[in-house]
């Protein structure tokens, strides 16, 4: 009898040892020794503690620039440790949503856009950034960008960089058929159809449900007609004449000038087509340039940008979507002071300009004055594509996030892009031949139901 007890205890201990052994190691790696709430600042005011920073610059020069800034910050503040984790944009939303349940959240993160910050406010996980903004100077950021993240008098995000949606084209291809840069959607469509042959496509229309391209493209069209995807009471509007016209327009583009596969394409897959010279036109931000340069450098010189097309050539100028990528300090962070100091560090010229230069023209400075500095101006790419830079900067000035337009920031606006419902609607119309108005109505109902459940 006795032996058996000993043996069983032994087995249990073994097990426990195996388990704790495993855990011990993970703990030392994920959490630093002195991550104590009270230890935030030592007596002499020197920063001390550990923060986790999630960002979505998963590869290459941007990631390196952020890492370099973190390294120099840690050197300056030996008591501070910054753990950086990167997620693709596609996983980021799922990640923090899961984190609310699992408790695994960062101290500081980027967000996909200002709309996501509003989602974070709604979920009560973002902390106000007012203290930082006041000390750094609110007027150094775009008023619109801050407005998009302001809720009940507090601002919850710090703009990191900006970009805006414009039209990209290949002037070599346009020259070859003697065409001008299109100014209206109709001109664009005709040219795109003309440029579609065995090897090249006029333009791609993509609508993977894991991404927001369907919504983005529909929003271009609706905004160009002076409309909005949201009603004044913040319900969805996909059934206005303008929206229906827009849906039909993009379905035609898909059918007549886009590779069929793009129905499942995300932003990245989609942009890669243009990077590799497979499409003649595309709609995107300034990220196009570095994409083309790294994929097919031989066509880079033929790439340029123009404002988004209009419905009628004499319609007023507009911008459909300007995005400010914000930094967010999280509510649960035990070291907001470290986060703030680090954000200020990231935005300091010697760290900020190398970061922006990682994707020149792709990332337009969100801090006033940077674009006038010699260091920023001297970048070769910025100089070569100065026309594109101007077009994008103008679009940033004029534009807002999708669904924000006249209604101000709202959770609804953010849910428009994060649910994949408008994309599913496009897929339904394309794949099943569902009647456009029926599909639009059903998507509208679904989104409104989600608004009801999530917000009220």
């Amino acid at each position, binding site marked *: 009898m006795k032996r058996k007890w000993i043996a069983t205890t032994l087995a249990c201990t073994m097990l426990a040892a195996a388990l704790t052994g495993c855990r011990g190691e993970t703990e030392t*790696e994920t959490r630093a020794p002195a991550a104590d709430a009270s230890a935030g600042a030592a007596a002499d005011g020197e920063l001390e503690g550990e923060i986790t920073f*999630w960002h979505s610059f998963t590869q290459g020069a941007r990631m390196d620039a952020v890492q370099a800034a973190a390294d120099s910050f840690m050197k300056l503040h030996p008591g501070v440790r910054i753990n950086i984790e990167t997620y693709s944009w*596609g996983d980021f939303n799922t990640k923090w949503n899961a984190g609310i349940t699992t408790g*695994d959240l960062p101290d500081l993160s980027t967000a996909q856009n200002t709309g996501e910050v509003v989602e974070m406010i709604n979920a009560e996980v973002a902390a106000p950034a007012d203290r930082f903004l006041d000390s750094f100077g609110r007027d150094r950021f775009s008023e619109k960008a801050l407005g998009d993240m302001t809720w009940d008098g507090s601002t919850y995000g710090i703009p990191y960089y900006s970009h805006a949606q414009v039209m990209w084209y290949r002037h070599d291809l346009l020259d070859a058929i003697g065409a001008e840069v299109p100014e209206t959607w109709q001109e664009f469509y005709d040219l795109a159809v003309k440029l579609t042959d065995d090897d090249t496509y006029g333009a791609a229309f993509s609508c993977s449900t894991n991404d927001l391209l369907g919504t983005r493209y529909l929003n271009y069209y609706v905004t160009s007609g002076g409309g909005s995807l949201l009603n004044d009471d913040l319900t969805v509007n996909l059934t206005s004449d303008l929206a229906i016209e827009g849906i039909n327009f993009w379905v035609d583009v898909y059918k007549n000038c886009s590779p069929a596969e793009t129905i499942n394409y995300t932003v990245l897959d989609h942009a890669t087509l243009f990077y590799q010279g497979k499409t003649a036109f595309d709609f995107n931000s300034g990220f196009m340039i570095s994409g083309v340069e790294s994929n097919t450098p031989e066509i880079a010189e033929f790439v340029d940008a123009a404002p988004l097309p209009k419905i009628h050539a004499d319609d007023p100028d507009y911008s459909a979507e300007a995005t400010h990528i914000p930094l967010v300090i999280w509510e649960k962070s035990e070291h907001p002071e470290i986060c703030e100091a680090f954000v200020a560090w990231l935005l300091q010229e010697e760290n900020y300009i190398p970061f922006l230069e990682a994707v020149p023209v792709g990332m337009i400075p969100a801090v006033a004055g940077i674009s006038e500095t010699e260091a920023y101006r001297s970048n070769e790419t910025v100089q070569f594509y100065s026309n594109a830079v101007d077009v994008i900067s103008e679009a940033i000035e004029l534009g807002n996030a999708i669904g924000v337009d006249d209604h101000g920031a709202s959770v609804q606006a953010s849910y428009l892009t994060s649910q994949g419902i408008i994309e599913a609607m496009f897929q339904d119309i394309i794949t099943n031949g569902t009647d456009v108005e029926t599909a639009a109505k059903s998507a509208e109902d679904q989104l409104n139901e989600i608004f009801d459940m999530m917000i009220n």
Partner: protein
Amino acid sequence: MNMLTRLKRRMGEIGCYTYVTVLAVFAAFPLLWLFICSVKESGDLLANPTSMIPQKFTLANYHNVMVNLGLGTNIRNSLMVSLSTTLIATVISSLAAYGIVRFFPKLGNMMSKLLIMTYMFPAIVLVIPYAVVMGKLGLTNTRLGLVLVYLSFNVPYAVWLLVGFFKTVPIGIEEAARIDGAGRLQTFVRVVLPLVAPGLVSTAIYMFINAWNEFLYALILTSSSSITTLSIKLHTMQGADVLNWGDMMAACMVVVLPSVVFFSFIQKYIAGGMTEGAVK
């Protein structure tokens, strides 16, 4: 034996060879293609989608995934998680299976039926509650958390399999050992376990493969690249800033090739690991 029979047999054999050859091409081609693409340069990869011979042989993709992306860490994580899961699950479930067979002869049948029911629980059903539980235990983003989750899926199935193997052990042998003065656990370890060793090994391999390939829980429950497993790392590469197929091919190759080697060595054991015990 007349000519006709011989001819028939010959034809039959040729038929068999042809069939397995066709199947072998179907089965192995993706691996071959993976290799070819992993040593092509990225321009070549996109310009010549069907060329079997790289214009220029390069190991740059491998260098990139191992050195710049640090795939090694994730290989280690996957190994740690899968091995711990397998080890712990084997201990727990062999104890339980033996206990059921020897000490709960009547309840045993029902117990193992209940256990196999757990096998039909789709992973997707339990992912939200697990997220909650792991959050409460503070085990999110740890390898231990993953091990616990994998245990919960593997132990019931392993017990069920092992019950079949233990049933084949004749009780007489154990009694002889006990008369010689060995205790229960001693009998178990010294006498019974060696007899079911093949079954134990194939069960363990099965669990290892399950843990090694798992995706959903690792996706939801881990967040750091220093903690997470290979599957998640590969998944992340797909959504990276730059879509680099060459890198992805190299990374897949790094993952798949050792598995293929491992599989060809352990063939003997996997054969039947899934069902053998259960139908004995």
